[in-house]
């Protein structure tokens, strides 16, 4: 058995398929590419592919990660090329690396993710926008209704917002960069952050029409390291 970590994109129209549909599509691409995936044992064997952090429908990503367990040794370039030939437009493997030794799973390593978002900013200035961001970041607590497996409850989401950065304002189109807690130890969706921005700006900033996940990070000591480097142990 061999463990391969792939980094892939999910851009353009394919952002309109759900996480489950993405998994199914990846699985079928492996089969078409003739890759010897490992199957889980049990009643309903399924392919051993696990995506590090599910991506919500409608959000694009230039760095998704998945662990794939395969039966026999492969040439990584061949692996990547044959898989890319089998994938639909928008899903593309950009990197495939072997993970050797005892390492945590990609999914278990996720600590944060960065997003670049575009929102509409009407009748406002760079300074005003920066003040809104400062205001959000200086809050001790931001309570929001969160849906969990056990129902809905109020949660303080402020600790999950690591950073909001102003990037650019051009003809009412505002670009921001978000760094957010992601994964099982704390998670906030970029949509919720855009809603918070809407609220704090009294809707002068609204309509998040493009969200792209830029990177997924693991945490080592106090530092965030991209998942690939982290799992390769660099």
């Amino acid at each position, binding site marked *: 058995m061999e463990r391969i970590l792939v980094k892939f994109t999910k851009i353009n*129209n*394919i952002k*309109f*398929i*759900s996480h*489950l*549909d993405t998994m*199914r*599509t990846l*699985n*079928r*691409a*492996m*089969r*078409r590419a*003739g890759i010897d995936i490992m*199957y889980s044992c049990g*009643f*309903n*064997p399924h392919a051993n592919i696990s995506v590090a952090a599910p991506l919500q*429908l*409608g959000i694009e990503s230039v760095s998704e990660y998945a662990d794939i367990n395969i039966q026999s040794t492969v040439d990584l370039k061949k692996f990547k090329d044959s898989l890319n030939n*089998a994938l*639909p*437009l*928008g899903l593309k493997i950009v990197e495939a690396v072997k993970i050797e030794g005892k390492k945590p799973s990609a999914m278990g390593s996720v600590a944060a993710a960065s997003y670049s978002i575009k929102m509409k900013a009407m009748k406002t200035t760079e300074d005003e926008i920066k003040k809104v961001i400062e205001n959000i970041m200086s809050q001790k607590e931001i309570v929001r209704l969160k849906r969990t497996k056990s129902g809905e409850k109020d949660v303080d989401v402020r600790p999950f917002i690591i950073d909001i950065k102003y990037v650019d304002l051009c003809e009412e189109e505002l670009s921001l960069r978000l760094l957010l807690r992601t994964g099982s130890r704390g998670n906030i969706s970029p949509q919720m952050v855009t809603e918070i921005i809407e609220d704090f700006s009294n809707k002068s900033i609204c309509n998040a*029409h*493009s969200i792209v996940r830029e990177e997924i990070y693991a945490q080592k000591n106090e530092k965030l390291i991209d998942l690939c480097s982290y799992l390769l142990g660099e």
Partner: protein
Amino acid sequence: MVKITDEMLLSVEKPGRYIGNEINVVYKDAHSIDIRFAMCFPDVYEVGMSHLGIKILYHEMNEREDTYCERAFAPWPDMEKVLRDNKIPLFSLETREPLCNFDMVGFTLQYEMSYTNILNMLDMSGIPLLSKDREGFPFIVFGGPCAYNPEPLADIADFFVLGEAEEVINEILDVYKDWKKANRSRVEFLDEVSKIEGVYVPSFYNVEYKSDGTIKSRIPKKEGCKNIIKKRIIKDLNKGYSIDKMIVPLIDIVHDRIMLETFRGCTRGCRFCQAGMIYRPVREKTVNTLMEYADKLLKNTGYDEISLTSLSICDYSDLKKLIFGLIEKYKGDKVGISLPSLRIDSFSVELINEIQKVRKTGLTFAPEAGTQRMRDIINKGVCEEDLINSVTCAFESGWSKIKLYFMIGLPLETMDDVAGISDLAYEVVDSYYKVPKDKRKKGLSVTVSTSSFVPKPFTPFQWDAQDKIDTLMEKQYFLKDKIRDRRITYNYHDSKTSFLEGVFARGDRRLTKVLIKAYEKGCKFDGWREYFDYDKWMEAFKECNVDPSFYANRKREYDEVLPWDFIDIGVSKRYLVNEREKASRGETTPDCRIKCTGCGIAKFIEDGECFNGANFSKVHENK
């Protein structure tokens, strides 16, 4: 090309329905193409993409260099609103081209309740609903099983294809290409295409009626129009075009697996079944052909499940060899095999037991009727003992959830026959408890479903009156009352939907205006409970001065001219009359693999031989 923004797609449910870009989708340069064909399914994407027929035609047409076939489906009402609000016409998934810019737009007619969706899709495309107003627009062509009674859509269609379209489509495209080059009039194309066998151009005929509302005669408007339209069939399914790849959707659809078509036609001769008559003769693919195409399809799609399809899969003559061949070949690749339709015999239960080693979900049986008398009338050649043996075998093998399918409202049915449905369900429960406790699985659940019988053209019951809505409901309540057991669940179909289906199944040309009226009142997605609006339909009938029960609830005489009489499916009217008479006498007709029953199809096929060489070991073993 229309522009669909991200915002639009994010505002609707399941936007993946509208993005195309699937695996094995065909992209061509539309400008270097002679013929652009839009293949449409008048229902939502997940339903339409589960249909094998349009996939076959899609890939077959795209084999031609001069043709580009694309797809379109009925947008769900949320997307329809977005498109209409933004004045965006309905478009194809491949190139997002409005349907009005195509050369031909084809619809498959799988069920009558999808007809309003056809009108809606035409309207959303800006294509006139009536054929006579369509100058300068694409040709609209209809095919599929409901085309065997084309008349309710006569004024909407430019032409119909009767029979297996794979056999005809290339001839049609050739004629179209020549016509387009010659730059001739619309009617000249219809003239040319009507000469092809299996093609019916309804505007070339007038229908006259008697004072009692029945048909007096059909009169061709000009010389040279065929009086009889013969259906087209592929003689040998092992030769010619066979599908070796299919589009794999990116979102979950109803039947998300490889459909491996094993044979067409059926020899059982059930008297209620239209498919059993119109798809004759039986033509099988050989095990070798099927193994070859299964391999190609698995490699090209990446699916991990193969469903063996046909009208009754256990009749495939080499079923064991096929199934065990597939299991043996793909056991390392985790490929599952499934059998969609099951006849009742213990052989099939054993077989299923063999292929579904894991997860015993549920087993479905279709006795169709509750008493032996009724099963003899409909010629469903199974008896109670068969059912009890099969379910016992299923219980012993670890199943505990059984579904039973029945029909109510069958011709000659009495309340005793209806009561028989509940009796049979209780016997299934009893047979569960007869299996020793340590051998059976816990949690017995028997689901009884009744659908309401709809008499269909080209069946021995095509002359019969459909039960009225009240009668059907009475029978449903009677059963509901009789089945009072927590282990048995009873489901039944909405009888108003069945009534409307019955009207259109045996309707004539006078229904086109009702259809348009109902559509104008907002009827669409009539097959979906949340959208079906019976009252609007009844208003439409009233305003058009058409009595729906004339079509659904009236018993016809044998000598009445039926709207579909001009179509030759190969099965003779004489045979259907004879079968209807035998039904009245409670006489059964044997499976025609045992003895030719003289339905006429042998004469219809030029070489005069049914089954093309299939071996019948299985049927003989059973009898």
